[in-house]
């Protein structure tokens, strides 16, 4: 292999024009590599401007980024990402001192207008929610079984405590559009949640007051609609009315799109975590079974289903397709990502998942922050141990999915 180290100043590379350097940059998918590329010289700096990374990054709560994903050999710290509460796609979610929330894109530095505190969900917003709901309350009588909200209490866990309204916090956030965000809100460390929506910059959330507390496992935008999955593996269509007029947006109805058939197992031995993923043409649900409590040694199991809306069923799938699609799972949101060329073979049918305490209860701190499950071999590989620095755990981590990433788009 002829390879010479040109150490003299006669190397032509410093004069590489910026637009040609840009061609090289586009083939560096990870944040760390793009950052280092931009530091090389002025012309490369110019070439790197305005090119956010394509691959998901892992962010730990002290701001450490796993930028060279998935190799993870190097880590960087982004101090302004420290102390985040969660994330949503490309946004990092922060809780402010006044109880409100802010959203920041750590790559572009774009910020969203602040989100209100959940503690100040005003009477006005509740009234707006109720006003929206009234017509549906009447209409509901005519509907079939598939209307599971609002107001009807079905299959709620016996003995599950309703959260104290003063402890409400955002547990999952979906940025539906520049003018609408949806959240699952619940008490800190509790199982039950409710849907809430607001416009960024608004004074209050409208928390769906009339709906029951539910065990909402995940929520996702799929083909412009909001869906959630609960502990029964029911797929719920969450219908939001967002008038252009002055009225605040509100969740007006919850329809069951799929009736789940969750397997029953001993909750002292096994827990099931659920994730919804928009995989372009399909809506996927991943059931992840883990050992409960001290039984962490119980083999982890993943089952992937796709939503069949026509027949209202989940259909198990054994592969994510031929073109190197991998799933990235986390409690703050999951994504299907088409692997860049060089990772296509090794990423095919892989599920990368965070141990981020996604379960609602009985969770012991894990030893690994990031692991990957190979659907073909049905084997889990541990990738990144949970780190601690200066005595503080950096756990949990969350994903950042860059805006123009390699997400799998609808065909």
């Amino acid at each position, binding site marked *: *292999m*002829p*390879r*010479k*180290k*040109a*150490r*003299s*100043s*006669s*190397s*032509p*590379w*410093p004069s*590489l*024009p910026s*637009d*040609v350097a840009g*061609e*090289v*940059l*586009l*083939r*560096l998918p*990870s944040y760390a*590599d793009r*950052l*280092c*590329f*931009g*530091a*090389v*010289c*002025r012309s490369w*700096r110019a070439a790197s401007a305005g090119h956010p990374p394509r691959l998901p990054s892992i962010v730990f709560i002290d701001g*450490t980024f796993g930028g*060279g994903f998935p*190799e993870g*050999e*190097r*880590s*960087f*710290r*982004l*101090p*302004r*990402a420290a102390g985040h509460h969660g994330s949503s796609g490309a946004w990092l979610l922060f809780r402010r001192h006044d109880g409100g929330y802010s959203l920041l894109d*750590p790559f572009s530095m774009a910020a969203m207008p602040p989100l209100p505190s959940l503690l100040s969900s005003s009477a006005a917003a509740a009234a707006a929610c109720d006003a929206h709901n009234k017509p549906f309350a009447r209409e509901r009588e005519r509907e079939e079984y598939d209307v599971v909200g609002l107001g009807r209490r079905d299959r709620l866990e016996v003995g599950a405590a309703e959260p104290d309204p003063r402890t409400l916090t955002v547990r999952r956030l979906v940025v539906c559009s520049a003018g609408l965000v949806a959240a699952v809100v619940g008490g800190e460390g509790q199982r039950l949640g409710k849907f809430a929506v607001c416009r960024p910059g608004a004074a209050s959330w409208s928390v769906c007051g009339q709906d029951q507390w539910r065990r909402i496992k995940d929520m996702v935008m799929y083909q412009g609609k909001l869906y959630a999955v609960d502990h029964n593996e029911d797929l719920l269509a969450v219908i939001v009315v967002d008038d252009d007029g002055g009225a605040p947006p509100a969740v007006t109805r919850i329809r069951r799109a799929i009736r789940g058939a969750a397997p029953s197992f001993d909750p002292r031995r096994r827990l099931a975590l659920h994730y919804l993923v928009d995989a372009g043409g399909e809506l996927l649900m991943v059931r992840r079974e883990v050992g409960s409590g001290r039984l962490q040694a119980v083999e982890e199991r993943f089952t992937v289903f796709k939503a069949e809306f026509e027949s209202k069923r989940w259909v198990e799938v054994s592969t994510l397709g031929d073109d190197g699609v991998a799933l990235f799972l986390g409690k703050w949101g999951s994504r299907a990502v088409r692997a860049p060329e*060089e990772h296509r073979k090794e990423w095919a049918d892989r599920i990368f998942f965070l141990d981020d305490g996604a379960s609602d209860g009985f969770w012991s701190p894990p030893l690994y922050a990031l692991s990957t499950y190979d659907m073909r071999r049905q084997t889990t590989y541990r990738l990144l141990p949970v780190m601690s620095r200066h005595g503080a755990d950096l756990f949990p981590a969350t994903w950042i999915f860059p805006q123009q990433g390699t997400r799998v788009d609808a065909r």
Partner: protein
Amino acid sequence: MAAPESGDGNNGAARMVTLISSDNTRFEVEAAAASLSQTLQLTILDGGGGGGDGIPLPNVDSATLSKVLEYCIKHAPAAANGGAPNATAVDRAELERFDNEFVNIDQSVLYSLIMAAHNLEIEGLQSLVAKKVADMIKGKSPMEIRRTLGFPDPTPEEQAEMNAHMLEYGWAYE
């Protein structure tokens, strides 16, 4: 399936064009191969490059041009088949093997190649070399990248700018 020949009544024999490097070396090559270059394709469609005229390429020296043409000749049949939808796996594997070997070269040659591919607008070659350079950069720190590509040691001013870039984005090495 033959590429459309601009007819000088010479059916059967592939049309040839002449390219002249910056150091005045003449290369005779099939028009189909030269047409992988978007820039040359226009000239060739206009009927240029034939006979004793030749197309001067003042930005490409003969060493680079012969390397560029080696790539074009190898890739021309697949390109003529419209991205080779009916190419066999063997053909594709062979092209891949060729490509890997092709960029296994000294960095200064890589540089000339990426510039030539850029100037001549040869998409596949541009992509191939850019990917090779990206692979050489991956996982390296800014200083390591500079050393790999033979940049001179940074002046104190440049060093300060490098550090500032990392800081500007809020990054600190761990």
